[in-house]
């Protein structure tokens, strides 16, 4: 393979992996800290994308802002939504068994999809790439690499760094890590576990929505986009080890590379490659790469 082409494929893999990480990190946080299997996580990704589409004209009109402001508004709204959802619905799931959580959140997927259909309709929509990011970088003599995709990768890396800083250097991060290790202890230490959970859940939703919003210009906005992301996200979370952000990052990168190069070298088996990867890893490390 031509070295320039190889470089581009690596860039593709990294960008895909980073975006997966953004969504999967929210899922693993929720799963690891709160012990909830949330099948509706893909729906939050979809909500973020649809919000980016629906709010862009409004932000332009009333706030005079562009794409970045729209994304920020989406994140804020998603955080509020997450906070509310946790209080209204998810807080009742803690005492439930995993299976019931699976099924109730499965029902939630159906509800979200139908609500989306009622509110926004079923059309496929595009979100325009902001003009200051619309260029391309020349790589090789025929191919160019879109600047916007580099932007996505940059945002993901920044968010990952921010997450790392929060988890290791702030009180909130300390509480989160403690809550992941031992929930009952935290409660008896006087920390309000309910509020903590609500914050963590809101963060998880915000991460997924952010991913959806920034991915919207390249993936377009369409019904069912949440389901496709959901399954791959679960694979990433399981490979990385449930509750481990580090694991989610590594797993997302692995999945990104396997999927990208799998498509190039084994197009017929491309769909299976990721699952083979997961099965292979679980057979050697039955609890994922980084056990929590």
């Amino acid at each position, binding site marked *: 393979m031509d070295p320039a082409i190889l470089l581009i494929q690596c860039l593709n893999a990294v960008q895909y992996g980073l975006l997966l990480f953004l969504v999967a990190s929210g899922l693993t946080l929720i799963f690891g800290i709160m012990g909830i299997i949330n099948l509706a996580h893909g729906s939050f990704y979809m909500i973020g994308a649809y919000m980016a589409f629906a709010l862009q004209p409004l932000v332009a009109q009333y706030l005079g802002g562009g794409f970045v402001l729209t994304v920020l508004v989406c994140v804020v709204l998603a955080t509020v939504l997450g906070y509310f959802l946790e209080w209204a619905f998810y807080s009742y799931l803690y005492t439930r068994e995993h299976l019931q959580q699976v099924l109730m959140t499965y029902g939630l997927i159906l509800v979200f999809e139908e609500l989306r259909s009622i509110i926004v309709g*079923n*059309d496929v929509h595009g979100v325009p790439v902001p003009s200051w990011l619309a260029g391309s970088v020349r790589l090789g003599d*025929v191919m160019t690499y879109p600047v916007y995709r580099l932007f996505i990768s940059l945002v993901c890396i920044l968010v990952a760094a921010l997450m790392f800083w929060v988890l290791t250097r702030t009180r909130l991060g300390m509480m989160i890590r403690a809550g992941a290790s031992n929930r009952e202890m935290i409660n008896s230490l006087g920390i309000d576990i309910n509020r903590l959970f609500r914050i963590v859940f809101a963060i998880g939703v915000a991460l997924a929505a952010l991913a959806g919003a920034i991915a919207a210009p390249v993936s377009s906005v369409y019904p069912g986009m949440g389901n496709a992301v959901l399954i791959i996200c679960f694979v990433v979370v399981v490979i990385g080890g449930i509750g481990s952000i580090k694991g989610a990052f590594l797993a997302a990168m692995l999945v990104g590379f396997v999927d990208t190069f799998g498509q190039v070298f084994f197009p017929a088996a491309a*769909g299976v490659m990721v699952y083979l990867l997961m099965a292979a890893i679980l057979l050697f490390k039955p609890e994922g790469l980084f056990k929590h």
Partner: protein
Amino acid sequence: MKKIFTHTALAAALALSAGSAFAAVKVGFMLPYSGTYAKLGEAIENGFKLYVQEQGGKLAGQEVQYFKVDDESNPSKGPENANRLIKRDGVDILVGTVHSGVAMALAKAANDSDTTLIIPNAGADAITGPLCSKNVFRSSFSNWQPGYAMGAVAAENGDKTAVTISWNYAAGKESTDGFKESFEKAGGKVIKHLTLPFPNVEFQPLLTEIASLKPDAVYTFFAGGGAVKFVQDYAAAGLKDSIPLYGAGFLTDGTLEAQGASAQGLQTTLHYADGLDTPRDNKFREDYIKNFPQLPPDVYAVQGYDAAQMLEAGLKAVDGDVSKKDAMRDAIRSAKIDSPRGEFTLSKAGNPVQDMYLRKVEGDKNQFVKIAVEKLADPARGCKL
């Protein structure tokens, strides 16, 4: 709008049923009313009902009673949804559907129960190929047709090598096979056929490969959300100006608003186009916009409209008596349909024999350029009729 139609038709049926010789003709729509293809399902139903309305609410003097089921573009629910219309509602004619997998299930159910089926979109070659049958018709196209037409155009343009790309499913394969057939017949060579699993939309790795292969042209078959994304990605990867992209019409039909600038100048082939400027098409468009102001008249509406015309041709021949199935089906098969797309007839296998147009994207329209191939008939390989 639909609600008013159904109620009007029903009211008319009830009010005038005393006068008609036979009970109303029961038409069952099995279309996607939810999910990505919902808009297409709506357009097809609107087109069908528009024609019936133009005939005064009756076809061949018969009232029409409508039933509908949402097939959700889910093939595994196909048989049970089809049976809802056939067995529960007892329809005489089935009209459906968009998704080829669902159409396969629908065709099987129609064959098993000997119900007449008119397919207003799904282009699976097999349905008018090895699985062809006397009671199944299409008012749309076979996947092979637009591909074949484009191959001829590409060869005419002087392209010598091409790369084809699509999802790894029947429709993609049939379309790119059609392209390959005419392209290689004219001396060109398809150097590689790239696929990715359906409905994956991560095109970057394959776009990179196209860039490394450096063909004269790229032919693609994508539809819906995949079409939007592919065209955008193709342009973003800088390939649009260096390697011409051709596609079956669905690449740019109904997707131009989302694709924006990245689709401008794209050439596609389809059996319909904007700017045909024939009196028949102009009248159709005028009527459609008047009745459905929110929706642009598109190929799906035309296909639904023509399905109604085909049904009328059959009903006229039997004076509205749907129980005379064989006579009705023979009449449909030998009909000449005065369609907004141009006149077309049906092949023995039940597929339209029609002109394929070359179109170019200008603004938000797929502007008619010229006729790519005249009176193109699907070869219906494997059909025993």
